[in-house]
């Protein structure tokens, strides 16, 4: 685990990180409610507890870098810069959604921000990330591809095939494994003979490091170092971000696989509480700052919901549009 030496932070930088994490937290809580009111349907995988990973990681990427995500992707999408109204409209299935209402929660896309979407097939995104990096290398672009995936993906064949191919061809891929200890209802130690995921990457001669996924400063520091290294062309790297999800795997999950005490214990060292305690201890922020950040976040979410409510449905006449990009007959 990263040394717990206190990483330097300024008031302005600290509040920026806190604001970003609160934007995600308020967005996800509102989604929980909107799902209860049947405004959002289908599958919904909320990101509460893992905000530090998205906020810490995304800040070190350039706009031209490529990002590949998973179905627990609201945090990645929002911090990558996809406007909250476009994300909420997508969850409502509206035409103004970032995928025109066709993808939903698990398939948010944004070509202008090189956000290549969530993927509902566990580990389905890893080969895509390898390919994007292959193109970056062959086209001599000085960009990298960051690939988010969960601990569940580590059991898939595509994880091993992709890490081997990326390492064999020394491709600029940064594999970010969000290890939240549960693959849906299966704890990591029920699924993996070797639970230290970094060792799997080293088996493919790939540098790998564990990171405290609850400490946004640690995540930011480690990821920015890894990004710079991968950008030099030395080949891919893997970071195992050890984190925890406070909510169920998805909406309809009575969480029989873990007890409430464990959740409560992790909530005490959640990413937002950890940062807030630290900034207050350093005298860099007050409770008013916290309430203002939270108020601003909720206001942004309110506006996003209003936008989604008012947006039009896509016309059924466009049902088959975009199946092909080019002329067919």
């Amino acid at each position, binding site marked *: 685990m990263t040394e717990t030496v206190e990483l330097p932070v300024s008031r302005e930088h600290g509040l920026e990180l806190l604001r970003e994490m609160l934007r995600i937290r308020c967005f996800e809580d509102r989604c929980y*409610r909107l*799902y*209860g009111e*049947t405004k959002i349907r289908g*599958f919904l995988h909320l990101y509460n507890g893992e905000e530090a990973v998205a906020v810490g990681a995304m800040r070190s990427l350039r706009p031209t870098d490529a990002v590949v995500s998973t179905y627990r992707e609201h945090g990645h999408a929002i911090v990558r810069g996809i406007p909250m109204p476009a994300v909420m409209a997508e969850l409502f*299935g509206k035409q103004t959604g970032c995928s025109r209402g066709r993808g939903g929660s698990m398939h948010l896309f944004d070509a202008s921000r090189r956000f290549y979407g969530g993927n509902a097939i566990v580990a389905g995104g890893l080969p895509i990330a390898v390919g994007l990096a292959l193109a970056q290398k062959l086209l001599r672009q000085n960009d990298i591809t960051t690939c988010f995936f969960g601990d569940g993906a580590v059991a898939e064949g595509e994880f091993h095939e992709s890490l081997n191919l990326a390492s064999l061809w020394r491709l600029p891929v940064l594999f970010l494994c969000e290890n939240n200890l549960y693959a849906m209802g299966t704890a990591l130690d029920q699924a993996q003979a070797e639970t230290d995921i970094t060792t799997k990457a080293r088996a493919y001669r790939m540098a790998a490091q564990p990171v405290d996924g609850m400490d946004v400063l640690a995540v930011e520091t480690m990821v920015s170092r890894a990004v710079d290294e991968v950008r030099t062309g030395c080949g891919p790297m893997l970071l195992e971000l050890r984190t925890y999800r406070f909510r169920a795997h998805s*909406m309809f999950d*009575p969480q029989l696989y873990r007890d409430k005490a464990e959740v409560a214990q992790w909530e005490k060292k959640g990413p937002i509480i950890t940062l807030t305690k630290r900034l207050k201890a350093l005298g860099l922020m007050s409770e008013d700052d916290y309430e203002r950040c939270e108020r601003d976040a909720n206001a942004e979410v309110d506006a996003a*919901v209003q936008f989604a409510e008012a947006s039009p449905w896509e016309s059924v006449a466009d*049902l088959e549009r975009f199946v092909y990009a080019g002329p067919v007959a």
Partner: protein
Amino acid sequence: MQVEFHLPSLGADMESATLTEWLKNPGERVRHGEPLATVETTKGLIDIEAYDDAQVLEHLVQPGTKVPVGAPLARLEISGAPQAPPPSVPSQPPAAPAAPAAAATTAAPASSAKTAHARISPAARRRAHELGLPLETFARSAAGGIIHVADVEKLAPPVASAQGDARAAMRASIGMAMARSKREIPHYYLSHAVDFGPARDWLIGHNAPLAVKDRLIEAVLITKAVALAAARIEGFNGYFRDGRFESASAVHAGAAIAVRSGGLVAPALLDANQKDLPTLMRDFSALVMRVRAGHMRSGEFTAATITVTSLGADGVDVLFPIINPPQVAIVGAGAIREQPWVQGSQCVARPVLTLSLGADHRVTDGRLGARFLRAIAELLAHPELL
């Protein structure tokens, strides 16, 4: 601000849940995100959390009761500004109109380029063979249309077999046409009661000086009224073929005539809207005679653009007739019977006729149907104009 807390939907396929335990009782405070109650779902126990900081005022549901998603569970007093209250009406996508033909269903075969052969279904081809009818007989009369078994059987030559067979054959062919009509045509029905008094009085006056052979019967007045209305209001006179309505300029009113050997035929009174009553009566009389004599002209069969049917004096008050395809409307005339009728503030006995309309909802709708029936009633109220 007081609000009701409703059972949230926790999954796409969750319809209801049973409240097992209140975690907050009336008077207690709950923070936003804190569990308020536990419910039993098909997947197990799930805690449902409050959306806002609030105080519990009242439990509306007791533990052990099963409630549908959205049912109110408790009344809360929200402290501080609540989050944007959700609008009451959940906006659902508009019911998808029938998917454009391009999607799942493939378009019915449009009438393709004129092929050498008439378009005859294999079943019709085999039936024609069985009835000894050469295919050429259909090629002409089916220009553009498709020949089905029913079309073949309709023109089957009168079979010389015993009357029983003829009756069965006629009944079968009418049955098939009616079955197809019921299957393909989305009927809607309307009825309208009419004071037939004025028409009847006019008829008695008109017939009084005339010899028996020149007298008119009530059916002729009704048929003329229907024909005039059909000429005036669009959508009831013509054919529905190959997916579209073809309005007919002329009005050939099919007159339903009971056939003693069983069934009903409705040969056409040609240009019924243009002929005066005596001429129409003569045509009608000749038509009945030909039906009685059993040698009908096939042309008269297929010419009708709308049909009028009634069961005569000993019939019933209202008919709900089936459209003769490919027509798009049929008017029924019930038995004319003395019935109570309100006139001003009095209730008097009047000879009441109930008109009914069966029409094709692909072409018209109830509003237009009502205008059509009222137009007929209006004409019958002024028989001198017929």
